[in-house]
């Protein structure tokens, strides 16, 4: 019963987040959002809405095209696809999440998780490695003690 309630609460929270997220996403917000996912293709390597070249033969036209697409009720995906059809995949500011391009997104996170897992594994292996039995250790001579003190000083910077 308790877990069912938890599940329901989570569902409600998720719904609220979605509603809040979508609320107020008018045409201006959509224009801004989609325009920031597209590149200007004049060669300036800038996001479409950030291209500020005077006399740029592309950015004004592309912005007008985007504005027109959103005004006539095209969805974000449809408007974006129209740009890809016209200007090629290079117009998208980031790789898509499909096919080979998916690799672009997966690889950095895979590297992070593999790295984290490796560190955890190495530390655990080293920690579980048996050390020399204490009884066989000889008494520490004065010189060695001084060495350890020096090491401790070094480690604590006192």
């Amino acid at each position, binding site marked *: 019963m308790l877990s069912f309630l938890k599940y329901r609460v989570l569902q409600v929270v998720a719904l609220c987040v979605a509603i809040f997220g979508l609320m107020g996403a008018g045409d201006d917000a959509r224009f801004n959002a989609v325009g920031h996912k597209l590149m200007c293709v004049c060669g300036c390597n800038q996001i479409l809405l950030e*291209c500020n070249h005077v006399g740029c033969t592309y950015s004004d036209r592309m912005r007008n095209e985007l504005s027109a697409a959103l005004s006539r009720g095209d969805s974000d995906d449809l408007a974006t696809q129209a740009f890809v059809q016209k200007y090629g995949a290079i117009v998208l500011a980031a790789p898509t999440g499909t096919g080979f391009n998916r690799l672009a997104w997966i690889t950095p996170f895979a590297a992070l998780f593999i790295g984290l897992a490796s560190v955890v594994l190495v530390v655990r292996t080293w920690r579980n490695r048996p050390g020399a039995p204490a009884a066989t250790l000889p008494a520490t001579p004065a010189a060695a003690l001084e060495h350890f003190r020096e090491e401790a000083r070094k480690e604590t910077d006192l």
Partner: protein
Amino acid sequence: MPQLGSFSLLLALALSLYCFLAGILALFRHDANADRLGETARRAGVATFFAVTLAALALVTAAFQNDFSVAYIFHHSNRDLPAAYKFAALWSGQEGSLLFWSFLLAAYGLVLRLRHKVDPRLFAYASVILAGVQIFFLLLVNFAAHPFAMMQGTLPDDGNGLNPLLQYPEMVIHPPMLYLGYVGFTVPFAFALGALAMRYHGDKWIHITRRWTMVTWGFLTCGIFLGAHWAYSVLGWGGYWAWDPVKNASLMPWLTGTAFLHSVMMQEKRGMLKVWNMWLIFATFMLSIFGTFLTRSGVVSSVHAFAQSSIGTWFLVFLAIILAACTFFFVRNRSHLKSEHKLESLVSRESSFVFNNLILLVACFTVLWGTLFPVLSEWIQGTKVTVGPPFFNRVNIPVALLLLLLTALGPLLAWRRTSIESLRRNFSIPAFAALAVGVLLIAFGLRPWRTPSAFYALMTICLSVLVAVTVFSEFIRGGLVIARHTGQNLFSSMGHLAHRNTRRYGGYIVHFGVVVVMIGLAGSAFNQDREKELGYGDQMNIGDYTLTCRSYTQDDRPNYRSEWAIIDVSKNGKPLATMFPERRFYKASQQMATMVANRSTVKEDLYLVYEGLNQDTARPIIKAHLNPLVMWIWVGVLIMVIGTVIGLLPNAAPVRLTASAPVRAAAVMEAGD
């Protein structure tokens, strides 16, 4: 003058070759003449500096004399170019910047060779390696990208002029800083490879390498952020970092250099990660060279890239030689790099450094991956894709947040292992402060569930508070111990504490600077912009500001023509300032450039761009950006630089503690460095 420059470059190459070959001979000979031969090699290295300096001066003089018989001067200068930019012409083109690189390398070499008495044998090895790198760059400027190449045919009356984007005061400082960082990584590389080649006994080489790395890292930090500030002030798109491939190229060695500056502590204090550190330094240097390859080969497209040329192949060959040399010495002498201790616990200072290194390297890999993915995509699927800011932001922001969390946790952990109880005790106040700030921000209207950028902004600010409180608590706890035993007030004690262990507390100041920068970056989640055509008396509102166009006009100067608007700014009805956004047309290069008008405050920047005249109405189009917290970024960088300088200062003599003091002090210092 061009003949003198050409001769100097050839002379410098000959001297470098001698320094390299005689240096190697001296290192492997064991007779009485070896030292004398080594000394001649060192002196040849010193003389290289003077020869390269002469060549650089010859090029600058040619620029000041408007000697357009030199092709480089024709392409990068003109008669009406202001004097400061004639000087900057030295690094504004392919050939000149390679000469500038050679010059800086020779200057670093001079300092290294003059300080050879610190450890003659190690410095002799480093000098030879440095000479090897110097030879490569001198070969380039002598045979592949000659800065003194002459114009063919009729001599032109005037030059093409400097790229307008480079005609900005910061461009006189930004490239030298960046190059000082890039080139500077050659020195730690030379020491590291030298120490490995000679199987250096003891820790001295790592201390020397760390100090050089800190200096270089400081320069690169300044260079990167000056570049960001330049982009913000000149490019006029309202931002400071667009993940341009060339900017990415400078970020990669910075990330690995930062990783090295952290993990080197484990080698110094615990004799661990020796192989890792060695390869970090190698990788940092190789990434500097790789970045230069990216900038100059035309492999990736960028607004900053130099013209596409054949020198990319030279860099690839050089990279292969470096990798081969590093691998050879590593395989031969890897037994010398055995770790003295092992990691004992996941909750320890050592582990935090390892995780910190891992995250920094993942960030570096992500930048490299994103920069090269278009090339990879074209190669594999035949379609070029764009990897722009949305990709880098989405991937790197979570990584940066993880790094911030570790920056907060690291100083609270003790060497070897930390008890959960101790961690809870030290962590509770910073965690509470971070949570409190998060709640306050939500209460004041920040809605993290609305957009991912708002969520990331909230997380960044909370984690920044976590780091800041950790840093302050470290200062206060240490300061209180000193105050108790010396009778000084808390602030003097904290100053004394920092002076006693400059590296540790300088590092904390750098961390605090990073926090301030991160808060500034988080502000970008709330950027606003508006664009409007403004005639006489027309108004535009953005945020609390009202912009009124008082007038717009034109001007004609010897170097450029300009159009600009006079905008009166008021806030909540109260007059605040008059701003002058401008657009220039440079006559020599026939190119446009933006002169942004920016009113910067601690809270936000009001950033106005003159977009141009509407051809139909002849009225100016003004784009206004309201960018919160941008000033924090520049202030944060300043704090980072101050922290780096403090970290480089020598420690003051330790305070003599009373018999009972070490116990209490040890408790305070439990977390260690």
